[in-house]
């Protein structure tokens, strides 16, 4: 049995290395592993699986941020309530990623961020919602549907009797990923190490007990897709889970709760959709210098450089750099919009009303490849 499981894991690890793995194979492996009692022999298999799942979580949480950021920056009026809602979602995704990194660091494993940067358009890492191709574009009808699919819970609470469906059928969800992670933590009861974890503004607290792991995962799931008890809003109607916030944007209606029955409804009052830059979908591989005007290219290049610096610092934070690196990463993230917003105002051509947008490309930061300005 052990040999078979070991071989299975080895296969999965090869897939991970070649970035062809998916969560389904990890979940299937987990199910197979859980059928057997935890022993000294299979302990390392369980632990290795947990680390792979956590790394998938890190990469996944990171992967949601660029499309959400692009959508946020496309909203011209930063005061618009939908901009505020998106901003809050992004804050929480950063928190989720930090928790995932802390959980992985607690096992003595350094999270990999700069070696696992997602590309767009592309699939979500780990095969979550494998039919979905995530693109970089401004806030529009399709991007909202895509965001809802990303955050889709296993059980959707109907709103005004409506439910959400999309064309895609395979929905390995983020929630399932965290369920498996929690199961493994509870199973293994590993000793958790605080060193190399980050707490503070972006990570709330360190994970030093299974209770903290449970708390972190419950928070991630509740903020993302709603609680286990199937409420979109058990932290309050002004703090809905991400899935439902996107649904509000899609429907142009606030979600309210019926006082009597507790059912959730879309409010009658229509919300106005913000004025957005018509950011075109960023093409495969991103924009190339030869294809864009100089003004746009300067902004694209500076964006990519700053983004890559941010990734370096983010990676560094959990790989020895600590608090100082995460503060710098945070600052660089705020700097990105300085390039993104003006870029979104540049039309792609005289005949095309759509505009450019940031490519979120990781570039080489070594001095020898820096171009002279």
């Amino acid at each position, binding site marked *: 049995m052990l040999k078979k499981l070991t071989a299975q894991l080895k296969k999965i690890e090869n897939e991970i290395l070649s970035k062809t793995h998916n969560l389904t194979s990890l979940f299937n492996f987990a199910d197979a592993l859980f059928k057997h009692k935890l022993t000294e022999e299979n302990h390392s298999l369980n632990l290795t699986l947990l680390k792979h799942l956590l790394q998938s979580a890190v990469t996944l949480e990171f992967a949601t941020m660029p499309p959400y950021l692009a959508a946020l920056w496309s909203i011209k009026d930063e005061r618009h309530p939908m901009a505020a809602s998106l901003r*809050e979602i992004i*804050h*929480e995704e*950063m*928190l989720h990623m930090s928790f995932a990194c802390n959980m992985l660091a607690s096992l003595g494993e350094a999270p990999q961020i700069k070696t696992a940067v997602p590309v767009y358009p592309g699939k979500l890492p780990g095969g979550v919602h494998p039919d979905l191709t995530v693109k970089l574009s401004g806030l529009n009808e399709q991007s909202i549907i895509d965001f809802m699919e990303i955050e889709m819970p296993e059980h959707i609470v109907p709103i005004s009797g409506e439910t959400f469906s999309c064309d895609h059928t395979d929905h390995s969800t983020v929630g399932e990923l965290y369920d498996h992670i929690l199961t493994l933590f509870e199973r293994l009861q590993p000793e958790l190490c*605080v*060193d190399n*974890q*980050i*707490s*503070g*503004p*972006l990570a*709330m*607290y*360190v994970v*030093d007990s299974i209770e903290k792991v449970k708390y972190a995962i419950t928070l991630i799931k509740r903020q993302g897709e709603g609680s286990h008890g199937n409420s979109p809003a058990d*932290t*309050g109607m*002004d*703090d809905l889970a991400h899935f439902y916030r996107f649904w509000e944007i899609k429907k142009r209606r606030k979600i309210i709760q019926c006082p009597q029955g507790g059912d959730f409804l879309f409010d009658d009052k229509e919300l106005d959709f913000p004025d957005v830059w018509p950011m075109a979908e960023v093409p495969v591989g991103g924009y190339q210098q030869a294809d864009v005007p100089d003004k746009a290219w300067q902004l694209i290049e500076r964006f990519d450089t700053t983004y890559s610096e941010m990734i370096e610092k983010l990676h560094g934070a959990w790989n020895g750099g*600590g*608090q*100082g690196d995460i503060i710098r990463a945070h600052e660089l993230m705020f700097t990105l919009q300085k390039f993104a917003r003006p870029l979104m105002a540049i039309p792609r051509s005289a005949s095309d009303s759509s505009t450019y947008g940031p490519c979120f490309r990781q570039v080489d930061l070594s001095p020898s490849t820096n171009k002279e300005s």
Partner: protein
Amino acid sequence: MAQENNTLGGKLSQTTITANLMFSEPCTLSASQIEKLWQIFAHIGEHWKDVYNESKNLKSAWLEMIKVKTEQQPSYSAEYKNAILVIEELIQLYGAQEAYQKLFFSYKVPHNQPENETEKPHAILTTLLAHTKYYVVDEFIRMQVLSGGFKHFGGQSKTSGEVIKVKGVNYKGYVKGSRYNNEQLARIFEQKT
């Protein structure tokens, strides 16, 4: 006229030295040195019973502070190494619990009494013990409080039958910020209608 309080510690603690920050080259402390310094920090939490259970939540920030204070000029490396030795002596003499008790609650760094009333008294740092208290313990206390230790002061109090939670939300140096969307930035004035 300085207030003398040299009754704590032994020969090492009472060794005289100049007041300024001890000079040292920037360096990286070893893991064992960091761990010993961490014990001083953790004991602050234990003795004021505020953050001991959550000291670990402050560690990443504390490590950053130690790093920048030792690896950049003016370096605190010598002060930290001195503090480790002074604490070890105190522990040898009094046992850990009493050593920290005395250091935190009994020992007072001498201060001068300026003639001009508007001037603040200055610390007189003429012993290794005084250096430990001023440059290490006191700064660790400030670090701990600004990182969240203040939240554990106050607590519930009853005033005319009403239970009032006094717990603070924000403090100088504390990174409260906008990251946690459903938490207040500070205790806000709630207008009763």
